[in-house]
């Protein structure tokens, strides 16, 4: 069941994921969550945390320059070295 309800997590944006994670933390801290739900939302919290970390890990610093044809249309990219 938990796996099903968390299937959307890998598609969430960082903003949505962290927002939901925060609301889960808040609910858990308030301590009013029924036992079964607390397990479910804890698992979801874990999934959201993994999603956030994954998004944060994807820190690629690729820098490319658009190459243009004679008409000024982009044809592709080439690495840009600004050093």
């Amino acid at each position, binding site marked *: 069941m938990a796996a099903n309800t968390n299937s959307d997590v890998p598609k969430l944006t960082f*903003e949505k994921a962290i927002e939901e*994670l925060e609301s889960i933390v808040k609910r*858990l801290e308030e301590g009013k969550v029924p036992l079964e739900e607390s397990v479910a939302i804890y698992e979801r919290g874990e999934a959201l945390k993994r999603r956030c970390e994954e998004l944060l890990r994807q820190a690629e610093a690729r820098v490319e*320059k658009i190459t243009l044809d004679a008409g*000024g249309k982009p044809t592709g990219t080439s690495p840009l070295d600004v050093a």
Partner: protein
Amino acid sequence: MAMNEPRLNLIELTVSELSASLKRTVEDAFGHVRVRGELGNVKYHSSGHVYLDLKDDKASLAGVIWRGSAGRIRLKLEAGLEVVVTGRLTTYPGQSKYQIVIETLEPAGLGALMALVEERKKKLTAEGLFDPSRKQLLPFLPTVIGVITSPTGAVIRDILHRLADRFPRRVLVWPVRVQGEGSAEQIAAAIHGFNALDVQGPIPRPDLLIVARGGGSLEDLWSFNEEIVVRAAADSMIPLISAVGHETDVTLIDFAADVRAPTPTAAAEMAVPVRTELLVRIDSLARRTLASWQRSHEARRTELRAATRALPSADALFALARQRLDHATARLPRALIANTQTDRVRFSRIAGRIEPRLLGAQVERRRERLSNVARLLASALKTYRDARLTGIARHRERVTAFGERALRAICGLIDNRDLRTERAGQLLMAFSYRGVLERGFALVRDRDGTPLRRAAAIQAGQGLEIEFADGRARATADGAPALTPPPRRRGGSGGQGSLFDP
């Protein structure tokens, strides 16, 4: 001839000679001049030369900027701009014209340019290009950032360094000239170009744009005041940050951008969050999740333990009941015996009293009551019979008296009836048709014996039977009856006649 003499003193020149002389004179005298005037009639020729007029309120001077010089001018020239130019005067002998060949051109003070910017800003504001409602929110964490700037220089370096410090992202740089001729067109084309990219295409479409340029003079930044650039920025569907010049430099693109950054570095800061801060935040959230979850479990466990302690053991719960059961079980056999004994005592006490003598006394008592009743019955019967016999004798006498009276009444009644019958018979005779026959009338019947009451019922040749008082005679109708018209009105004779028509 005298008239001609002074003329002869003058050297006769050809038109070309004069024009050449004039050209030399003008060029010598005005080889380097500085002129202030308002631009008018500006024409960019495809050859790259620019033709224009310099004017003030009274005079106009034709001017030309050759291609080489035009490339160095950072402003896009347009009519109405107040400028100061340097150059040399020359003539154009073919058309008897003179013009200034402009080498440098500057706006006549900042005021002139500022006025132009103000005017343009007013116009675009009126169009709604700068409306706050058009502003888009920047994405929290863009995946691809498009940067429109010069690919060389400090600006792109600053942006990339700051991005790398905060949150390295994929960056696409669209190289453009940021000043000079064609720069505005290139910048506008780059904004449109990024917007036109397909999200799924080989070059990913950025989800954030930065248009950047380092600091410079108002003229250096002029491209970012150009309408084409401002419109492109306003139309961008991708959120756009403008970062042109230093903090104090404001260009029109800043009003059209979704966010204005004071510097290129600041634009990078607005573009991405700080990764390490986010990591710390996520980590803290994760720790809090676990901690609060564990806490809530611990609390539940404690509660459970407390509840467990409070719960009495099953033994204790049943002990009392079991004790009662034990007691009852122990008492049961004794109680049964005691109960039986009690019953037996009661039984023997009663059983001892049951004897035949007891029964005999009962029978004797009842027999006595029976013979008493029988005696009473016999005397009652006798009394009843005497009373009935007396009643019957009395009734018999009354019946005999009634019988005599009835006989008498009947005889009287019969005599009376005989008289009335005779009288009625005579009356009947008088009223019978036979009485009528006696008086001489006859009754006509048909052969079937049915009486005929009207002549109309008789047909010619029909057999008739005529009854008289003394007997009957047969007859045959001779022809149709002659009818006596009825005494009551009954239509014309035609109606009557029609009765006999077959």
